[in-house]
């Protein structure tokens, strides 16, 4: 069993993606034996009306509910986000929300985000905060988007101690800065897709502990083989710990 907690489906304005819809993503998942994925709309990084993207994704995945766990993208800086959130929860059956704070250009410390995270906690949903999508050095000239700051992440963790937070697209250096607060908080998790260093998973386990790590691939951007190999081969973990990263921690978090 392998559960990937961070993939997205849709188009990217700056490159034709090879795997950009559910059918293509399922082919890739089958190729590398990934059973389930937490999925969100990639179109929603750029759509103003994100509910269109959330609903399109819902239509695509509803026939494949055994393979996909829907996360709704919510933009708390755009009017009407409250209705989008309620509708995603009540009608689309989302298990979590995904946030792109720096692409949607809002601060994690002020405004609607605080209300959204309070409600997310009340509804017992996960929140996946995407720190980055692409290497900042390779961004398109029209969209140079910095990563979400570790200070903002710290603020959210401290402000919402009961909120289940997945940190997506995070690098090892950023985990290092946050390691104390991640270890201290039972509901904060790190996803593996951007952890990249020789035997990097060993380093990650040392920093935050095995129970805090979730398997993620960042499909459709990254080859999933990269993260499979990091967890299955390039470390010194026993089989039980590899299983925790590959699916057991996610099963527990998502109550699967």
């Amino acid at each position, binding site marked *: 069993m392998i559960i990937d907690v961070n993939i997205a489906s849709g188009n990217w304005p700056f*490159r034709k*993606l*090879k*795997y950009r819809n559910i059918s293509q993503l399922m082919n890739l998942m089958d190729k590398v034996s990934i059973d389930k994925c937490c999925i969100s709309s990639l179109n929603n990084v750029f759509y103003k009306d994100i509910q269109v993207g959330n609903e399109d994704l819902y239509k695509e995945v509803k026939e494949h509910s055994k393979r996909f766990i829907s996360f709704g993208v919510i933009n708390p800086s755009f009017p009407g986000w409250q209705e989008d959130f309620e509708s995603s929860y009540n009608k689309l059956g989302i298990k979590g929300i995904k946030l792109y704070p720096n692409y949607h250009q809002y601060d994690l410390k002020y405004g609607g985000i605080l209300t959204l995270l309070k409600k997310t906690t009340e509804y017992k949903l996960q929140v996946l905060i995407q720190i980055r999508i*692409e*290497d*900042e*050095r*390779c*961004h*398109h*000239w029209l969209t*140079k988007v910095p990563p979400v700051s570790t200070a903002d992440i710290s603020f959210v963790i401290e402000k919402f101690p009961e909120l289940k937070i997945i940190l997506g697209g995070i690098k090892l250096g950023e985990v290092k800065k946050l390691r104390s607060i991640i270890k201290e908080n039972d509901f904060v998790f790190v996803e593996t897709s*951007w952890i*990249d*260093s*020789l*035997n*990097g998973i060993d380093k990650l386990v040392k920093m935050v502990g095995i129970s805090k790590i979730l398997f993620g691939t960042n499909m*459709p*951007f*990254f*080859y*999933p*083989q*990269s*993260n499979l*190999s*990091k967890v299955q*081969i*390039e470390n010194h973990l026993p089989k039980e710990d590899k299983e925790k990263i590959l699916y057991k921690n996610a099963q527990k978090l998502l109550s699967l």
Partner: protein
Amino acid sequence: MRIDAHTHSHVGSGRMKLEDLVETVETAKKFKIDKLCVSNPFIDNPGEGFRGGFPNPEQFRQANENVVNAMKKYPKIIIGYCYVNPCYPKEGLDEFKRCVQEYGMKGLKLEVGCRCSNPQVYPLIEKAIEFKVPILQHCWHKATGNYIGESDPLDVAELAKRYKEATIQMAHTGGDWEYGIKAVRDCPNVFPDTSGGEPVIGMVEMAVKELGAERVIFGSDAPGRSFSTQLAKVLGADIRKEEKDLIMGGNIARILKLE
């Protein structure tokens, strides 16, 4: 034979620790990588690293000593590349000669320090042509802005057109690989390596389509990067097995004239 054409004996500031190298070699073995091309463009400048300043001759000589030690420890695995700072033309040339003639290093590694289109680099390129060894040139086209003295793929293309007999291994496929591949497409003597950067789907496919598999070289940039991430770019690519074999070792073996 699998060859990783771009690794380092140390990352960051400070001297190489032998256990770091042992970890790199042992991890490479897990992935059936037979040989590692190793350079050490990292100077003994605690707290600053090589980005903090341009290494002086004493510093780059020390960096190469570390590679010599690595070659001695793993003579069947490690292929040394000599690193110099072209801002010191005479000392750089002397060090390059020493590394090739005395220690049997097989390539020249150039990093940030002096853009490769700068005439200060030319004597080193001419010597590499004479020695018949490749030049591994660090290269990145950065949306965030390059360092002073950091080469862009267009610098590599300019150098390659000036010295058509030179064999240039363009590191990181230029970083922004779509830019890098197009920049050197009409330079048959430029061989982009896949090292560094993220395992983005489509990179190797585009390189093979635009340049041909015989011009693409596998490299990891380990230990700063994981073998898993870097191998996935080639092993996960939707290309033929013969093409993967060329990228994973055939091409660099041909360039280095390995048996």
